[in-house]
């Protein structure tokens, strides 16, 4: 949780914190704003936002989170940072690591059994929880919107994102929640690359590759979502897919990757049943 004097400052910090965190392939983490928090729902009674961070493994999370928090939330006026998963037993020492920015002038406070660090800064004080909860999440939930043209695809994607935003336990890590450059694993030509364009769904390559596009489809956009658990992702996908069924949308499918992306499989027909 990031809180601040105003919602705008909380958002400014959260946007920087979750910037360049679209895909674990290129960014080493995926992050996004989960939902807005009213003042009554935050520990310090100020408006805020909750943010989710996902990495491929536990070891990568502290490195990403601590560096990013230190350069974005710590630097942003009026912010404070709190653990959103206090009941989770697996703890990550975030505030404990950042406290040393205080150069020995930092102080801790134990309030209601939770330890916080007060780091003196030029503005006043930055307050951050000593540890943050860490749990297994689900990454790579997705669906593809296949539309007659780019305008229809974009309108459907925007509607889907609107329906999926501000849902607990879910983030959409890509810009505006939408991906135009879905990828496949590996490369046909460049062996060193881990991901390259999803040619099977690229309309301009229909004639030169093994296309999976039905006739009449001229643009495809992908919605990628990560979450704290499979049910949260399913609920968001259900809302998003329904909202995306707009004029010009020919089909909605999902990247399957041969079923090898992970243990969680989201079958669209079952989700919508």
């Amino acid at each position, binding site marked *: 949780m990031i809180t601040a004097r105003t919602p705008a400052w909380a958002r400014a910090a959260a946007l920087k914190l979750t910037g360049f965190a679209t895909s674990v392939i290129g960014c080493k983490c995926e992050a996004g704003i989960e939902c807005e928090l009213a003042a009554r729902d935050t520990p*310090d*009674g100020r408006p805020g936002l909750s943010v989710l961070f996902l990495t491929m493994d536990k070891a990568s999370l502290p490195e990403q989170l601590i560096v990013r928090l230190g350069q974005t939330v710590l630097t942003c006026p009026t912010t404070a940072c709190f653990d959103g998963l206090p009941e989770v037993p697996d703890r990550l020492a975030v505030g404990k690591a950042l406290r040393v920015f205080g150069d020995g002038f930092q102080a801790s406070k134990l309030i209601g059994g939770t330890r916080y660090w007060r780091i003196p800064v030029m503005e006043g004080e930055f307050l951050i929880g000593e540890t943050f909860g860490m749990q297994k999440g689900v990454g790579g939930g997705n669906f593809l919107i296949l539309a007659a043209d780019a305008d229809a695809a974009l309108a459907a994607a925007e509607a889907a994102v609107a329906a999926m935003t501000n849902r607990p336990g879910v983030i959409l890590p890509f810009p505006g929640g939408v991906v135009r450059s879905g990828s496949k694993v590996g490369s046909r030509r460049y062996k060193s690359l881990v991901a390259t364009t999803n040619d099977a769904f690229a309309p301009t390559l229909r004639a030169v590759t093994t296309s999976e596009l039905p006739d009449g489809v001229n643009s495809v956009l992908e919605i990628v979502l990560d979450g704290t658990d499979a049910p949260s992702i399913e609920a968001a996908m259900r809302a998003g897919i329904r909202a995306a069924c707009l004029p010009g949308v020919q089909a909605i499918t999902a990247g399957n990757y041969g079923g090898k992306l992970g243990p969680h499989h989201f079958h669209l027909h079952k989700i919508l049943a």
Partner: protein
Amino acid sequence: MSATITLSLATRPEHSLVADCIAPDRLAGLTGEEIAALPVLHGGRVATLGDFFQVRGERASDVRIEGDLTQVEALGARMAGGALTIEGSVGRDLGLGLAGGRIDVRGAAGDNAGGAGPGAARGMTGGEIVIRGNAGAETGTRMRRGLVVVTGVAGEGTGKGMIAGTLVLCGGAGPGTGRFLKRGSIVAFGDIERPATFRYACTYRPPHVALLLRYLRTRYGLDVPERHVTGRYERYSGDLAELGKGEILRWVGQ
């Protein structure tokens, strides 16, 4: 086993009654008979708890005490857990050397609440004490960790020699408050006589105070005005005659 152990003062002590056996974590494993047989000191003579208190309930870490307890001393001394609710005012040495748990006093407290025993280097090392009334002299003396809240006026020497922890003083406090403070915070809504060895730092809105006061509202139902939660505080660093890493935060308004 019961949810709560209730101790009702049946015989008013004629002298000071040292009842440091009353600590929820120690009573949690005892039957009613065993609780009644615990030793107390009445005017320096050994007696039993049952000589003064009627005991209801057993084997619980939630303890409630009723009656005029102004002569009863050292309630909750060295307790390490559980909850102690005191309906009325209590004598000196409440929560002496407290290590954990919560003490909620629905009245005033005598001297040295949350303080240190004679010759002890440290007072309370954890836990929380809420006094819904005035507190005597030297409240929170040499406390190492924990929280003490006084909704009324605290006596002289409050927080003397604090090593760390937090004192919240909703009313005023007597002279010498915070003297020899090493670390820790004294948050004051009212007037306190600040030692000359504290130096003004700035006026700001300390984020941890808002967090703390909201916690007190939620956890203890204390009626903390919003102006104190969101208000500005003068920060005085001190005691500069000591380590100087402590602070007095004095509310100055919105």
